[in-house]
Structures are given as structure tokens and as C-alpha cells.
């Protein structure tokens, strides 16, 4: 009696654990399948001309040069605006306002913004900027991306500064070092690897964002350095080309998708390696 009960319990356990292995294979298998298809389809169109030619009209040859350049400009702009704001906010939360109710509220709201639908950010920027100036532009895209960057950087900056040993702060205070100089000269330097990680993660986050650009930067068939005009960018080109009926546009969409994925993965892996080095010290 006791033995059969035991065998049954073990059997049930074995079956359920088997199911969890199946779930792992199923989940990771699908993700591997997606990456595999992406590499296969994307590589097929990966030629030098991708980096040297403009996005073509349907039926003719071309590349993604203007889209890549536009993406670089807008991502750089967004991070250049968003990262400093995020860092300063993180500094306040970890140093001046540690443990206060205000910091708690900001952290809570920040975490919500971190996962808030990005298309809402696009609508917001459309309302406050695009609708006011009456045209789509790279500037609007940069504002939207900057808003996406802030929460990521706030989160990592605060986390990283909280890890700075309290003894350092006490030593600095004992020498009469002003708080602001301690933060800038010591705390930020100690936490540097973590801060860079945060910025890299933010870049990875926004470089593939499409939804906030739909009604802000729009896109542009041609070369444009003028951020006051609609500006081409990879995610929007992928979106438009993938939904087009033209085979060569669809091919460009796949190749663009591969480029974005590689960039995002490279950034995340670098961030991971950096933060691993930072914590080992």
C-alpha cells in the first residue's frame, strides 16, 4: 500500500517534471526558430549595397543607408537627452532622497513607465509637439526616444549608486568633502561600469522601437540630415516594407530586422559583460 503510493507520487512528479522539460524545449525552440529564420532570411539580402545605397522605390535595387543613418542620429539624440536626465534623477533618488516617500513614488512611477506601451509615448509626443508645429520630424522622434530612455537609465543609476559602499561616503564626509563633489568624483566613478551598462541597455531598448516613431519621425524615402524633417529610420522602414507587396522591399525588411537584432544583441551582451566585470571587482 505504502509502496504503491510512493511509486504513484514519484510517477506524477516525473510526468510533471517531464512536462517542464517539454515547456522549455517548446519555448526556447520557438525563440530559436525565430532567430534562425531571421538569420537565414536576413543574410540572403546582406550585401555591401545595403550600407551604401538609399532605400529604393519598388522594383529597383537599393540599400538601407538612409534608414541606418537616421536610426543612428535619432538613437544618439534620444540617448543624449534622456540619459543625463535619467542619471541625475537616479542620483537624487540614491543620494539625496534615499528612503524618502518622494523617492518611493518616483521609483514606482518610473517602473510603470518602464513597461508602459510605447505607442502611448508616440501619441503623447504627437500631441505636445507634432500637432503644435504641424509636421512630423526627426526632433519629435528624438523626444519620443528620449522619454523611452529616461526610465531605463533612472532604474540602473539608482540601483548602481545604492551599491556604492557607505564607508566611502563616511570617509568623504569625515574629510569635509561636499556632497556634490563626493557624488561626482567618487560615487559616479565607483559605479561607472554599472552606469554604462544602463546606458547601453537604454540604447538597445530604443534602437528597435517602432511604435513611438509612427506618428513622430514618420519616415523618409530619401537622405536627410535635417532633423526638422521626417527622417528615415530602420524600424519604420521594416514596418512599411514588410507590409508592402514587393518582394525586394520585403527582402530589405528582413535584412533590416537582422541588422537591428544584431545591434540589440551586441549591446545587451556588452552591457552584461561590463556589469559582470564591475561586480567582480
Amino acid at each position, binding site marked *: 500500500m505504502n509502496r504503491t503510493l510512493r511509486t504513484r507520487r514519484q510517477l506524477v512528479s516525473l510526468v510533471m517534471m517531464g512536462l*517542464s522539460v517539454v*515547456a522549455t524545449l517548446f519555448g*526556447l525552440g520557438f525563440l530559436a526558430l525565430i532567430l534562425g529564420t531571421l538569420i537565414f532570411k536576413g543574410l540572403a539580402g546582406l550585401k555591401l549595397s545595403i550600407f551604401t545605397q538609399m532605400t529604393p522605390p519598388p522594383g529597383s535595387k537599393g540599400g538601407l543607408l538612409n534608414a541606418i543613418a537616421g536610426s543612428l542620429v535619432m538613437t544618439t539624440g534620444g540617448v543624449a537627452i534622456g540619459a543625463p536626465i535619467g542619471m541625475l534623477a537616479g542620483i537624487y533618488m540614491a*543620494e539625496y532622497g534615499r528612503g524618502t516617500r518622494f523617492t518611493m513614488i518616483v521609483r*514606482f512611477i518610473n517602473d510603470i513607465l518602464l513597461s508602459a506601451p510605447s505607442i502611448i509615448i508616440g501619441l503623447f509626443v504627437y500631441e505636445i509637439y507634432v500637432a503644435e508645429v504641424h509636421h512630423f520630424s526627426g526632433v519629435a522622434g528624438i523626444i519620443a526616444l528620449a522619454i523611452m530612455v529616461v526610465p531605463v537609465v533612472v532604474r540602473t543609476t539608482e540601483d548602481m549608486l545604492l551599491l556604492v559602499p557607505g564607508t566611502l561616503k563616511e570617509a568623504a564626509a569625515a574629510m569635509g568633502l561636499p556632497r*556634490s563633489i563626493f557624488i561626482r568624483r567618487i560615487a559616479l566613478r565607483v559605479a561607472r561600469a554599472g552606469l554604462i551598462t544602463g546606458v547601453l541597455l537604454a540604447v538597445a531598448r530604443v534602437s528597435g522601437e517602432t511604435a513611438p516613431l509612427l506618428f513622430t519621425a514618420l519616415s523618409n524615402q530619401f537622405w536627410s540630415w535635417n532633423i526638422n524633417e521626417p527622417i528615415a529610420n530602420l524600424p519604420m522602414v521594416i514596418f512599411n516594407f514588410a507590409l508592402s507587396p514587393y518582394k525586394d522591399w520585403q527582402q530589405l525588411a528582413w535584412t533590416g530586422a537582422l541588422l537591428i537584432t544584431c545591434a540589440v544583441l551586441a549591446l545587451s551582451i556588452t552591457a552584461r559583460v561590463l556589469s559582470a566585470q564591475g561586480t567582480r571587482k
Partner: protein
Amino acid sequence: MAVITMNSSDVGPKALATTRAAAVRGFRRGDRIFRLVTFAAALSVLVILCGVMLSLLFGAWPALRTFGFGFFIHATWNPVKDVFGALAAIYGTLVTSVLAMLLAVPVSFGIAVFLTELCPWWLRRPIGIAVELLAGIPSIIYGIWGLFVFLPFVQSVIQPFLINLFAPIPVLNILFAGPPYGIGTFSAAFILAIMVVPFITAVTRDVFETVPAVLKEAAYGIGATRLEVVRRVVIPYTRTGLVGGVMLGLGRALGETMAVTFVIGNAHAISSSLLAPGTTISAVIANEFNEATDPMYISSLIALGLILFFITFVVLAISRLLLMRIEDAEAK
């Protein structure tokens, strides 16, 4: 920045005292300015949220005033006659997300159990890292894969199979009825599920790892099987965090735009069949916003955005509150 030289011989004690006082004053001013600047930055996070809320409310006001409460309960979406109701989009958003969670949660829990209980040690880190990296893949990648690879497969294989399988079963034959279009609620939910699996798995695994080894060892010590340890020790111990993780995934799924827009079919209709084309709030906004020229049309789209923002805000807020409780418990 003031530099204090303590050993300059030509400065008397009195002069030294004044330079010092000046330096301290300078420091104090610098400190105050820096503190103010960082405070303003922290405040900007709150300003962004309030700004988003106010601008959406402001933009949605004309539509909400015109259609009133009917906006939420009517499914008519007619840009030509300027009559708008959000019900079809709200319905589609909720159905795709809930369906996606039904698919994604068991798989994510399975992966998390595998990672924390079964997986050999040397494999844990690589798989864990792979899951975290996959969580960062832009959603448009899932969308384009869904459009070109998944849809044809669904249309030719999965949907005919489901339709035939459930045809003789009442209720289910209504849910899985109709011609296999490929595009539709089912496909969108499936793509969403694949997309949120890494999110939920990452949180679930982290939460599972907070269970003290002593508890599990004690359970194994009195002869519990693996399943019993997971069900009676790990899950009860981490319940709050698990719900938080699931809500986080749900928040993502509700607002996801790109993965859905490609495969949902964009039909403003509430269909009893899960295989029929539908739409979601984010897909409507993504598809129609740039074509909308009429003020009432634009306002209605913004009102949809407001509804989406409200729903995700509530879901994410609950998720944060639950996960915060776990973090606090861990810190103690």
C-alpha cells in the same frame, strides 16, 4: 571649483580663515545647485507621467464628450459617418492578451521550474542568459516573423486542424469556426505569447531563486518528490512574486503594438470565433492614426490610447506593488 592650499606661507591665519569661509560658501552653493538639478530630474519622471495622462485626456475629450459612455460599449467604428465606439478594440485587446497569457504562463513556469530545479548547473547560466537576451529583442522582429513565416503555416496547417478537431464539440466549435484566414485573434495571441515568455520566465526564475534552500532541503528530507517541493514549498512561498511577474507580462501584452499589428487582421468586429480577424487598441492606433484627418477621428483614436493607458497603468501598478513586497521581504 575652489582649490584650498593650506601651506601657502604668505597668507596669515586671518586671510586663511576668509579664503576658507569663501570656499565653504562656494561648496555650499555648488551643493545646493547640484541637489536642485538632480531633484528637477527626478521630478521630471512624475512630470512625464502626468503629462502623458493630461495630454491624452485633453486630446480624447472631444470624442468622450460627443459619444459619452457609449464610446465604451459600442463596437461601431465608422470614420466615414464619424461614429466611433471602442468596444471591438477593447475586446480584442483583452482577448488576445488573456489568450496569450493562457499560453505563455504555463510554458514560462515550466521553463522556470526546469531552470531552478532540474537543469544541470553548467546549463543554468547559458539558458538563463539566453532568456534574458531574448526579452530584449524588439517586438517588430516577432511581427515580421509572424507575418511571413507563422501566418502561412497557421493558415495551411494549424487552423484547418483546429477547425476539424473541434467541429463536433459544442461551444468549442463556435470558438474555432470559420475559414482559415491565417490572420486573426488566435495568431496574434500566439505571437504575443511567444514574445512575453522570456519576460515572465525571467521574473519567475528570479522569484523562485528567493526560496531559501533550507526550506526545499527540509521538504526533500521528509521524502517529498520534486513536484511536491515545487507545489507545496516553492509556489506558496513565492505566490506574490509569481502574480507580479504574470501581471508584468500581461502589461506588456496589452500594450504591444508591432507584434500584433502584422497578424491581427485589423477588423473592427467582435467575432465569436477566435480564428476570425479582429483588432486591438494599439493596432488600431498604429494603422489609422496617420490616415486620420478629421478631428473627431483623431480624438477617438486618442481616446483609445487613453483607455489603453488606463488599463496598462492599473495592471502594471498591481504588478509593481506585488513585486515590491517580495523585494522588501528579501531585503529584511
